C-alpha cells in the first residue's frame, strides 16, 4: 500500500531518467545515507567502527569495482586482490616520495596506477574468455605478490617488508578517531557508488552489458570490444585500487603483501556472486554477508552455547563458523542463484502488488 507509484507522473525526460524513478525508493536510499552520515557516528562504538563498519565499507567499494567488471562486463577476474595491493602500495609511494602530496591525491593516484595495471592485465581478455581469463588474471595476483615481496623499492627498503602510514589528514582535518575514519571512507563510498550507478546507466555501461550478454552480437552492432573490455578493466581496477589504498591507509595502518593475497581475490569474487552479479546493491549486500557474518557467528555461537549452558571451545566455534558460513553460501545460492540483491528486487515487486501478490 505504501510502496506504490500511483499518482507519480513524470512530465519531463529528466524525471524519467532519474536513478530512482519511484519517490519511495529515493527517500528510502537518501534516508539510509543520511542515517549513515548523521546517526551512525553517534550510535556506534569503537568496536563497531574499527572491526565492522570500516572493513565493510572498504570491501564494499572493492566489491563494487569487481562487480563492474564481472557483473556488468562479464569478464571473470581473480586478480582483484592484486589490484588492491597495487592501489595500496602505489598510494603509499606517492605519499612518501612526493613532498606535500595530499592524502586524497595519493589515494586517487593509487587508483590510477591500479587502473593502468588493470588495462595491462586486461589485454588477454581480448583473446580469451571465461575460465581461461580467470586463470590469466590470476597471473596478476602472483606477479603482484612477488613484486611487493621482492622489490625493495616498493616498500621503501623496509627490512621486514611491512609498510605503515600514519597521521592522515585532509585539508587540515586530522583523521584519527574511528568515527572520522568511518566518515572518510563513507564519503568515498557514496561518491564512487553514484559514479558506478551512473556509469552503468550510460553508454559505457550499456556497452559492457552488451559485451557480457553476447560479444559477437555487440561487435556487429558497432561496439568496439577492445574499448569496452579494457575500459571495464580500467574502471574496475581504479575502484579496487582506491579500496586497496583505503584498506592499507585507513583500516590496517600498517600492512604486508599478505593482506592482499589470493584469498582476498576469492573473497571479493564471492562477494559479488553472493550479493548479485550486475547489481550495485548486490556489492554492498555481498560485502556485508562475507565480512560481517563470520564475525557475527564467532560471537553469537559462544553466546548461544552460554544460553543453553554449554561451553564451546574456541576451536569448535571457529570450525562451526566455517561450517555454517559455508552452508549458508550454498543455501543462498540454491535459493537465489542471482544473489541476495535479487531477493530485495523480488520483495519490492511483491510490495507493489501487495496485498494481492501473485
Amino acid at each position: 500500500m505504501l510502496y506504490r507509484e500511483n499518482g507519480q507522473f513524470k512530465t519531463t525526460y529528466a524525471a524519467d531518467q532519474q536513478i530512482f524513478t519511484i519517490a519511495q525508493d529515493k527517500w528510502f536510499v537518501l534516508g539510509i545515507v543520511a542515517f549513515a552520515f548523521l546517526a551512525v557516528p553517534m550510535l556506534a562504538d569503537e568496536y563497531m567502527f574499527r572491526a565492522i563498519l570500516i572493513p565493510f565499507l572498504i570491501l564494499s567499494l572493492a566489491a563494487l569495482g569487481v562487480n563492474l567488471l564481472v557483473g556488468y562486463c562479464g569478464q571473470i577476474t581473480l586478480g582483484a586482490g592484486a589490484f588492491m595491493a597495487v592501489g595500496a602500495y602505489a598510494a603509499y609511494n606517492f605519499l612518501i616520495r612526493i613532498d606535500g602530496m595530499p592524502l586524497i591525491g595519493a589515494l586517487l593516484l593509487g587508483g590510477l596506477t591500479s587502473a593502468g595495471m588493470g588495462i595491462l592485465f586486461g589485454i588477454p581478455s581480448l583473446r580469451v574468455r571465461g575460465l581461461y581469463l580467470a586463470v590469466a588474471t590470476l597471473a596478476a595476483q602472483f606477479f603482484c605478490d612477488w613484486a611487493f615481496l621482492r622489490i625493495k623499492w616498493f616498500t621503501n627498503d623496509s627490512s621486514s617488508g611491512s609498510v605503515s602510514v600514519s597521521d592522515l589528514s585532509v585539508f587540515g582535518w586530522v583523521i584519527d578517531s574511528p568515527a572520522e575514519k568511518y566518515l572518510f571512507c563513507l564519503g568515498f563510498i557514496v561518491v564512487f557508488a553514484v559514479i558506478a550507478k551512473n556509469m552503468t546507466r550510460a553508454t559505457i555501461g550499456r556497452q559492457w552489458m552488451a559485451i557480457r550478454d553476447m560479444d559477437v552480437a555487440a561487435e556487429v552492432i558497432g561496439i568496439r570490444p577492445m574499448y569496452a573490455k579494457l575500459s571495464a578493466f580500467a574502471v574496475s581496477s581504479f575502484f579496487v585500487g582506491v579500496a586497496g589504498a583505503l584498506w592499507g591507509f585507513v583500516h590496517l595502518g600498517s600492512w604486508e603483501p599478505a593482506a592482499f593475497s589470493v584469498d582476498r581475490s576469492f573473497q571479493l569474487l564471492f562477494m559479488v556472486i553472493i550479493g548479485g552479479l550486475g547489481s550495485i546493491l548486490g556489492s554492498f549486500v555481498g560485502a556485508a554477508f562475507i565480512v560481517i557474518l563470520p564475525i557475527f557467528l564467532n560471537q553469537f555461537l559462544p553466546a548461544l552455547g552460554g544460553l543453553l549452558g554449554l561451553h564451546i571451545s574456541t576451536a569448535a566455534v571457529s570450525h562451526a563458523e566455517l561450517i555454517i558460513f559455508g552452508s549458508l553460501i550454498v543455501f543462498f545460492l540454491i535459493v537465489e542463484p542471482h544473489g541476495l540483491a535479487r531477493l530485495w528486487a523480488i520483495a519490492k515487486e511483491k510490495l507493489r502488488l501487495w496485498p494481492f501478490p501473485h
Partner: protein
Amino acid sequence: MKFRALALAAAVSAVGLTSATVSTAAFAQAKEQFFPVLVYRTGAYAANGNPWANGYVDYLKLVNAKGGVNGVKLSFEECEFGYATDRGVECYERLKGKGATVFQPLSTGVTFALTDKAPVDKIPLVTAGYGRSESQDGSVFNWNFPLLGTYWVGADVAIQHIAKQAGGLDKLKGKKIALVYHDSPFGKEPIPLLQERAKLHGFELMLLPVAHPGVEQKATWLQIRQARPDNVLLWGWGVMNSTALKEAQATGFAREKMLGIWWAGAEPDVKDVGAGAKGYAALTLQHSAEPNSKVVKDMLEMVHAKGQGTGPKDEVGSVLYMRGLISSMVAVEGVRKAQERYGKGKVMTGEQVRWGLENLNLDQKTLDGMGFAGVMRPVQTSCLDHMGSSWVRIQTWDGTKWVPGTDWYQADEKLLRGMVLNASRKYAEEKKITPRTPEQCKQ
C-alpha cells in the same frame, strides 16, 4: 516460494541477532584483571598455536588457584584469529572493549598492525620472542615489550653458535650460510642483522624465502643442494618446519648443520619426522621442554588434577606450552610490579601495567621461588631496554625429545644496540615521535 520466505526470514533474523550481540560487546568491567588471549587453534598453524594458548591460559588458572595477584583474580577470554592479520585486528578491537590491559598477539604481522594502535589505546603489547626487533628501544616504542628476546638476538646467537662450532668467528670467512625463511615480516626480521654479520665476518648469506604456509619447498631445497651451503638457518613456523626437515632428509642435507629459530624448535616441528630429524638443533628462548620443572609439577597438581586443564595433560611441559606459560608469567608479573606502585589488590589499568612491565625485575631468587629454577634466567627491563634479557640456549633433537645444551649465549650487546638505535630512530623520525629523555623515563 517457501524456500524464499525462509531465506528472507533467516537474513532478517541474522541482522537482528548481529545488533543484539554487538551491543553486548561493550561488557561491564568486573573487579578482575582481564587478560585477552589471541589464539589460533584452527588453520595452518594450529599445531603450534594450540600448545602455546594452552600454556598461556593454564598459567592464568594457576595464578588464580594460588589466590590471584595479591588477591586480584585473573579473568580471560580467547579470540580465534587463525594467524590472519585482519582477524587479529578484529579480535584486538573486540577484546579491548572488555577491559584488556595487555595484549600478546603471537603473530609478527599482527604486532606490526597493532604497534600504531597501542599508544592510542594505551595498552602495552608484549611480544615475547617475536615482533619488531627495534622495539627493544623503549624510549621510542613506549608500548612494545619484546621481552626475553627478539629475532635479532636469535640471529646473532645463531651466528655465534655456528662460529663456535667452526672454531671462532674468524673461521666464518668464506663460508656460505643459507637462511630458509617464512616469507612474512616474521621471517624477514633477522635479515638486517645477518647481513651486518656477513659483512663483518666475510661469510656469504643466501636468502631463500618460502611462501606461506610452507608446504612447498622442493625448489628451495634443490637450490640448497646445488649451492651446498655450510649451514642452514631455519626461520619457520608451523608446518613449514617439519616440511623443511623432511626435504632436508630427502636431499641429504645433514640435519646437524641446520639450526632453527626458537619457533622452529618445538615438538610439533619434529615429531612427524622423528628419527629423520635427529641431530637438528634449534635456539631456545631460555627454556626448552621442561617436564621436570617445579612450575609444571604445580600446574599438574593444582590445575590439571582438578580437571581445570585447558589442553591434554601430556602436553604440559612441552616447548611451546612452556613458551605460552612464560609469556603469561611475564605479563602477570608486570601486573604484580604495577600493583607495588599503584596499590596492591587493585585492578591495574593499561598505563599502570605498562609501568610495571618497564620496571620488571625478576631475579633468579624470585624466579626460583615461582618454580622456574633451571627454566629461566633473570629478566630486568628498563626504559631503554624493553627486552630485559637476551639469554639463549641451543637444544638438540635426539630423535625422541629435545635435549637442552649446557652453554648459554647472549647477543653481542654492542652490535645489537647500534642496530636497534638506528632502526628505532628511523622509526621515530618517520612517525614524528620524540624519544623519551632519561628524565622522562624516571617518571
